[in-house]
């Protein structure tokens, strides 16, 4: 996936206020980021997650937020035409911040939440906790806490039974 193509698709999904399209795009970027990691792709995965989140909240479609939504839209349009689309990322983050500041509901902002979510997804995909933290800059404690409340551990079978592991523990702990 080329960065410009991603911005084209992101701008189109946002223009149409199509949260499903944005989420699907985020899924594809996530896989791309995992397979061929680059900082840029990671930032785009966070951005597409954040934009998908915004599009999934009907309150952001009310007149109260029109100006903020247009500002995000315009920055996305600028980015897709820019020589270096990624140079507009800080502006996009600022515009999303302004949108949120109109009616703050959470202690952590959408980009922080996006980074945490992406980190948890990397961990769920099969990368180690340390690697997920290293890639995203999110503390391990945050990733663990988030991951523990998901079903990710249910997906993987292990070769060591509970009985056997308990036996290891008893031996190690002097049982």
């Amino acid at each position: 996936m080329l960065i410009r193509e991603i911005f084209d698709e992101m701008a189109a999904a946002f223009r149409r206020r199509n949260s499903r399209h944005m989420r699907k795009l985020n899924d594809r970027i996530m896989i791309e980021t995992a397979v061929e990691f680059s900082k840029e792709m990671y930032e785009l995965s966070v951005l597409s997650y954040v934009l998908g989140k915004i599009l999934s909240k009907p309150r952001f479609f009310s007149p109260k937020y029109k100006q903020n939504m247009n500002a995000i839209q315009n920055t996305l349009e600028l980015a897709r035409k820019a020589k270096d689309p990624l140079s507009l990322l800080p502006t996009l983050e600022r515009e999303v911040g302004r949108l949120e500041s109109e009616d703050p509901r959470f202690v952590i902002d959408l980009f922080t939440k996006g980074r945490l979510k992406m980190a948890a997804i990397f961990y769920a995909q099969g990368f180690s906790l340390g690697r997920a933290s290293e890639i995203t800059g999110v503390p391990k404690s945050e990733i663990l806490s988030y991951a523990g409340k998901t079903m990710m551990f249910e997906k993987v079978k292990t070769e060591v039974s509970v009985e056997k592991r308990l036996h290891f523990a008893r031996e190690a702990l002097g049982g």
Partner: protein
Amino acid sequence: MASEKYILCDSSSLISLTDTCLESVLRFFHRSNVFFIIPPSVEYEIITKPLQMKMKAYQFSAMRLKKLMEDEVLMKVEAETDAPAKEILQLTNSIFFARGKPLHMVDMGEAEMIALAKNLRITTLLMDERTTRMLVEAPFEIKDHLEEELKVNIMVNSNNLQRFSDIVSGMRVIRSSELVAVAYEKGYFDNFGNEKKKMLEAALYKTKFSGCSIRFDEVDDLLRIER
């Protein structure tokens, strides 16, 4: 006096134990001469770094872990593991390949932990993290998992996998869930009288929700075993 026993801890298990307010389990075992060892990188990650962070909430766990270090329940061991850790990192990050490119699976801290275990000849690792545990125990399960998640074919470099398997041969991984279960067997929850089994159940679920990589059916199995 019972002979000394050593368990090497990674940051994930210590994070989930403090998150569940169960770090006193470490103190409980320490009274029977069990020492919990950490490499310097884990100390930095769970104590030094959180204490420097702006967000005060991170300091709550760090302060409690610092106290465990001061009381020598947790012991930092510095050993010359730089070269072997780099070798382990290089190996683990060139076992699985997607689209011809190596997948960087683990970070330096996790590689250091294995290197330190090898260096100190400690065979028991306390680790709640899933991927490194599976690399040690069942690397082909990771391959299948990666293929399912990333929807690409994953190639395995058998030589590197074999070399890594040789390094971790004999290592056993336990999680904080097993630590809590054995603590239960040894009377840790006895204060709760008739409700001690219920307390174990609650503690195991809390541990899981705090990030210990244990499945629901494994929690059920543990509860079935612990009568």
